């Protein structure tokens, strides 16, 4: 297997996201599969700007995985989506 590019992940740490579950996502070191974790580049974002868009139905906390932004993120969903992204 050749060397793959890591999946870029941005967790929003803006006020609205942080208080509605974003803080739980920051514990990713504790709940993510180490194999998945090793293939991800995780960083924070001071605000992804999604919470102000009236067009989206999704609610905070928001996470950007690759180029896609997902709302309503929970620890379980985060694990699942990241595993999919890494194995894609």
């Amino acid at each position: 297997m050749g060397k793959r590019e890591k999946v870029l992940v941005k967790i929003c740490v803006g006020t609205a996201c942080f208080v509605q579950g974003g803080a739980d996502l920051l514990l990713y070191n504790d709940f993510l599969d180490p194999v998945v974790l090793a293939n991800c580049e995780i960083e924070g974002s001071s605000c992804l700007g999604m919470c102000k868009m009236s067009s989206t139905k999704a609610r905070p906390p928001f996470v950007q995985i690759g180029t896609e932004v997902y709302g309503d993120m929970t620890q379980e969903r985060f694990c699942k989506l990241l595993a999919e992204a890494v194995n894609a």
Partner: protein
Amino acid sequence: MNDIFIDVDYAQIYKSGQKIGGDVFLLSRNPDNNQVVCTLSDGLGSGVKANVLASLTAHMAHKLSFSELDLTHSAKIIMNTLPVCKERKISYSTFTIADIRHPSLEDIHINLVEYDNPSALLFRGCSSLSWNREKIDLQRDGAFKKEELSRSYLKMEVGDRLIIFSDGVTQAGMGKSLPLGWRVEGVRQFAQQQIERNPSISSHDLSQAIVRKANTLDRLVSKDDITCMVVYARKPRRTLVVTGPPFTKEKDALLGEKISAFEGRKIVSGGTTALIVSRLFNKKLKVDMSCWSPDVPPCSTMEGIDLVTEGMLTLSKVALVLEEKKQVRTLHDDAVKKFVEVMQDSDQVHFIVGTKINEAHQDPNIPVEIGIRRTIIGRLRKALEDNYLKETSQEYL
């Protein structure tokens, strides 16, 4: 805002075994006419009696300094009011009053009145200056000798320090490590070394160092109350806090100009605000994932800005910490701690408050109460002014 800051602080160790001090320090600032008055008074003996007498003296000195009365005349009134000890035939309390006025950067002057305390020291950089003191003789009823009051008028420059201490400092180590005690000369040399080692040493640190050294000379069993007060005239340490996006997008550029024109430390508080600043200065914003706690989102780093934090949660936590005067060392290692440290280390704090409303914060589903930015800044300013004697100012954008 003032271009000059008079940094005054004191340190004190009571006589070993005493729960109350016989040395009393008072400080008042009158920002209307740029006046700072500090008084150090030492009551005869130690413990409660000394404390009552020293407090009496210090408060009288203080009140009189703010009146229109001439300082020498005030000192005479105090001396005539002070009771003379029946056995020892000396007055109950000694004092030093420093009345500092600083109308402008070039004109800082001190009216210094000393009565029986060890002579004050004046340092310009690390060199000690001497000056002539005008002696005033006073005869009081019941006293066996003439009293001598000394008065000086000193011009101070930015960077000068005035050090005033009680006889507990000069007599430290007497009969123990030093036959005649530390004496004024010893204190002078020690202070000089401290200033040489750290030319911008704060009043707090210098007074602490002198008092600790005196206590060490007394082999940690002080024989008298040890008190030292330092007055340091310096340029104010300024901090700018930018929070919230401007009301209209057109004002963004103005915000950028204000930030780059500011001399001093800069804090940006708020996710969207940070993005605006990052875009304006074309600097990368990086979230520091190692620095957060369950109540406070992580802070970020950006070149040219000393601290970048999240907005409302961090600010309300900072306001709470400052209102309750919590010790910095008891705080989590997060954005709030960094913010509070910068606040405590500043003399003047200027707030630029963006007035744009954040739609996302209006969501009723948000589990914690997110206040109104203006209210929180108001609380912050009040806490800084009342609890920490900082100067603050504010503008809306």
